[in-house]
């Protein structure tokens, strides 16, 4: 029974080993010389390569569907594509952060190691098939995050961010665990498959007979519902949905920028994967749908309004990602196959756009890109970067024919398809409102004259490649969207069946 486990878990095991080896490498070389300049760069490139090798191992895995480790982990089409997405985005983020280390002359290679460690845990989180395995993976990921959020040691902002994230994150993890324990208490199982068998049965059999109801669990039982509620709260905190979003702007702003990029992209992928599996596979019931509808509406509204008054870039991006999570939750709260598919499409396009915008924020760092008005007259100094920012901002706003429009269109289609007319309506209203601050970027770049002269330092090659690829994706996604639609349809089907 162990043979399949090792073969199937080879990518994760390789990544964990690589992480530990990189840690040892870093420790050894940081004490060999007084100051080993290229250490962080070495560790970063080695980390990047190990992620790519993990990707190759994942791609070449002989198993496509398996239950592993006594039903604690699962791999299927759903997890496969999610892991591919996660690994690619982590690789992109490590590429983006290379110049940051060089500019700051950081010798702390631990950030890379912690990022890799959280990537391992996120890989396990995506495959999690048991509430306990899920919780363990979430904890490992969160702990790594708490540390790298505070990693800029000479900045009080960063320490504050790490502390806030730690306290609130630990609290929410506690709530998540409490919810898991309540589910265990009321049903006696923690395996998601067993929970699915328990919870789906009455939903299907209810029209048949009344006596069935007395004996089986129902999600509207108060105890079980409390457990589901607690688990949902824990998850919603992690993806920064309203009303559990308060930590996001402060933590995003205080952390070092490459960490913010990591925060915006990677946990959302992994936690959404986990949420989909827990809620749509195990607890399929319309009871918790109302909770997610409320959170979706609140996130969209807050993301639209709160970002209107922001002056700082990273806070604005934090609020815009809160708004985007609202849109993704539209797809989530539908509960239909189109809903899941629209969430996955929206998620992948969100990752594309976020990688783009954070690469730009990192590229402009040396010219002090802290406030939005620092972008003034960028169209004159660096016209291509100005066009890139414009296109990404228009895509965030959902203007055709860019990629963001395709994701929003499918999300609204899924909402209308399952009868959630209110969600779609509020979605389009908040789209228009959020359009205002996205266009503000374009306005400042093209139409404003700055008070001081802006100097321009060129960005490094890795970021240019990343920006080029993501810009190409955003602009020309519209011409050929079918591959992504087909892939996500596959993923949605393999989740539900």
């Amino acid at each position: 029974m162990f043979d399949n486990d090792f073969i199937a878990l080879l990518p994760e095991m390789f990544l964990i080993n690589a992480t530990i080896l990189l840690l040892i490498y870093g420790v050894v070389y940081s004490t060999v010389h007084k100051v080993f300049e290229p250490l962080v760069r070495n560790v970063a490139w080695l980390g990047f390569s190990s992620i790519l090798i993990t990707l190759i191992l994942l791609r070449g895995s002989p198993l496509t569907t398996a239950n592993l480790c006594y039903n604690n982990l699962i791999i299927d089409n759903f997890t496969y594509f999610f892991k591919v997405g996660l690994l690619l985005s982590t690789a992109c983020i490590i590429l983006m952060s290379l110049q940051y280390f060089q500019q700051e002359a950081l010798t702390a290679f631990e950030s890379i190691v912690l990022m890799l460690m959280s990537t391992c845990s996120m890989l396990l989180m995506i495959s999690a098939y048991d509430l306990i395995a899920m919780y363990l993976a979430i904890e490992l990921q969160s702990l790594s995050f708490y540390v790298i959020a505070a990693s800029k040691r000479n900045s009080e902002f960063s320490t504050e961010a790490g502390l806030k994230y730690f306290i609130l994150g630990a609290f929410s993890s506690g709530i998540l665990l409490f919810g898991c324990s309540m589910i265990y208490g009321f049903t006696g199982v923690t395996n998601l498959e067993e929970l699915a068998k328990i919870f789906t049965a009455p939903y299907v059999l209810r029209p048949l007979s009344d006596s069935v109801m007395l004996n089986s669990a129902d999600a509207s039982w108060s105890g079980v519902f409390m457990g589901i509620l607690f688990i949902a709260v824990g998850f919603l905190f992690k993806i920064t949905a309203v009303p559990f979003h308060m930590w996001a702007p402060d933590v995003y702003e205080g952390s070092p920028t490459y960490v913010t990029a990591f925060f915006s992209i990677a946990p959302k992928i992994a936690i959404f994967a986990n949420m989909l599996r827990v809620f749509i596979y195990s607890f399929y019931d319309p009871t918790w749908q109302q909770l997610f509808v409320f959170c979706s509406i609140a996130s969209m509204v807050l993301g639209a309004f709160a970002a209107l008054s922001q002056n700082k870039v990273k806070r604005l991006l934090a609020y815009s990602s809160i708004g985007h999570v609202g849109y993704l939750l539209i797809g989530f709260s539908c509960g239909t196959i189109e809903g899941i598919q629209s969430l996955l499409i929206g998620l992948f396009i969100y990752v594309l756009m976020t990688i783009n915008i954070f690469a730009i924020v990192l590229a402009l760092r040396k010219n002090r890109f802290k406030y939005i008005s620092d972008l003034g007259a960028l169209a004159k100094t660096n016209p291509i970067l100005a066009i890139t920012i414009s296109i990404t901002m228009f895509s965030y706003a959902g203007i055709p024919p860019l990629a963001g429009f395709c994701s929003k269109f499918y999300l609204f289609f899924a909402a209308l398809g399952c009868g959630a007319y209110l969600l779609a309506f509020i979605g389009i209203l908040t789209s228009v409102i959020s359009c205002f601050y996205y266009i503000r970027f374009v306005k400042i770049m093209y139409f404003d004259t700055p008070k001081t002269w802006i100097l321009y330092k060129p960005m490094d090659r890795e970021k240019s490649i990343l920006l080029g690829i993501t810009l190409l994706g955003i602009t020309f996604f519209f011409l050929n969207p079918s591959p992504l639609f087909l892939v996500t349809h596959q993923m949605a089907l393999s989740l539900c069946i």
Partner: protein
Amino acid sequence: MLQNINPFYSSLSLSALILFPLLGGLFVSFITESKIRTIRIVGLCTSFITFLYSLFFWLEFDNSTPKFQFVETIQWLPYSNINFVLGLDGISLFFVILTTFLVPICLLVGWSSIQKSKKEYIIAFLVLESLMIAVFCMLDLLLFYVFFESVLIPMFIIIGVWGSRQRKIQAAYQFFLYTLFGSLFMLLAILLIFFQTGTTDLQILLTTEFSERRQILLWIAFFASFAVKVPMVPVHIWLPEAHVEAPTAGSVILAGILLKLGTYGFLRFSIPMFPEATLYFTPFIYTLSVIAIIYTSLTTIRQIDLKKIIAYSSVAHMNFVTIGMFSLNMQGIEGSILLMLSHGLVSSALFLCVGALYDRHKTRLVRYYGGLAQTMPIFSVIFLFFTLANMSLPGTSSFIGEFLILVGAFQRNTLIATLAALGMILGAAYSLWLYNRVVFGNFQPNFINKFSDLNRREVFIFLPFILGVIWMGVYPEVFLESMHTSVSNLIQHGKFY
């Protein structure tokens, strides 16, 4: 990827017509800005070749069939039955030709008056031309919407970058947000249609019958989007702002093509797909249009800015068009299409006249001009010709259009026709008063004392307009004969007789 799933049986290809300006723009973007003359010549040749190519579509157009011609289908999302379906019929043929006619003029206008970002100007107009031709050819509802919205982006940039004064930013914002807000409702309606029927192909949707309640809902949503574009009172405020602040060529395109998008949408989508709702809302449209005509004509008399006067007269003309269109008979609809084409020529020419004045004296206030007949005689003649055309003098194209519209409206509702004719009288009032103040009378030597008449380039720009207006006014049958079958098919289809 982009596979044609129907072999095209005509040697003319609409996708080539759409792609050619885009390729021209791409080619231009690689030439350095120092060779500005080359860039301008390449851009001009591209747009001119596109114009000639579109004339071939007119030559090979078959007048005897109401079916869509030059149809091409390119796959987009195969599993959702949404594809790029391109086609022309009698209604859209002339809009395509109008578009390709106006863009070379715009490029010529900017030949010496644009001083900054000259290359981007050419690229923006070529991209805009592509998108506009795509709007008129697209026979798929969702993709029509995509291109309908995507003309916002280049237009926003054109107004904002090359506009004349600081208020341009507000104007660009207003233009963008007004149009976006209206069209998001249309997106919901399209998604609802897609969910109900499973397709967004117009040729299939023309055969589906929606229930009357659903038709009314969908019609209102479509109306929200098209009414902003037409523009109808009370969402017409963006038009004077956008026209005044835009550069001359921007105003030409805005008045010439972008206003027609709204009424084209009514004609192509609202009226054929929702016939019962159209009949239900006809009195509503009549009321709004008549209010708009009289209100804007009266407002025009009070204006002091040359461009605002012509912008408001555009609003009045477009509401004339909607009166004609919603009379739902042959004369009304053909008159409305002819008035749209004529307005495209006349309004654009008037904006060109005002642009000529602005280039020389950098002011648009009527107060500062006077006695131009003595110093700019050629300009005075051309301006007189287009002022008379704006007033719908018999012999010019707008007379034919307005006459047919009044005939059509009179058959439906004599009161509306009377009030609309009253609007014509007011039109004569403001046009003649404007002309008198600017061209006749005394000099204003306190303000302007150096004069130069139109140079050869500008006279050559006006000649095609004069030719078009006279041709359409004296022998419109050449244009009308291509419309007969399509329009009568529209009326038969909706059973409007």
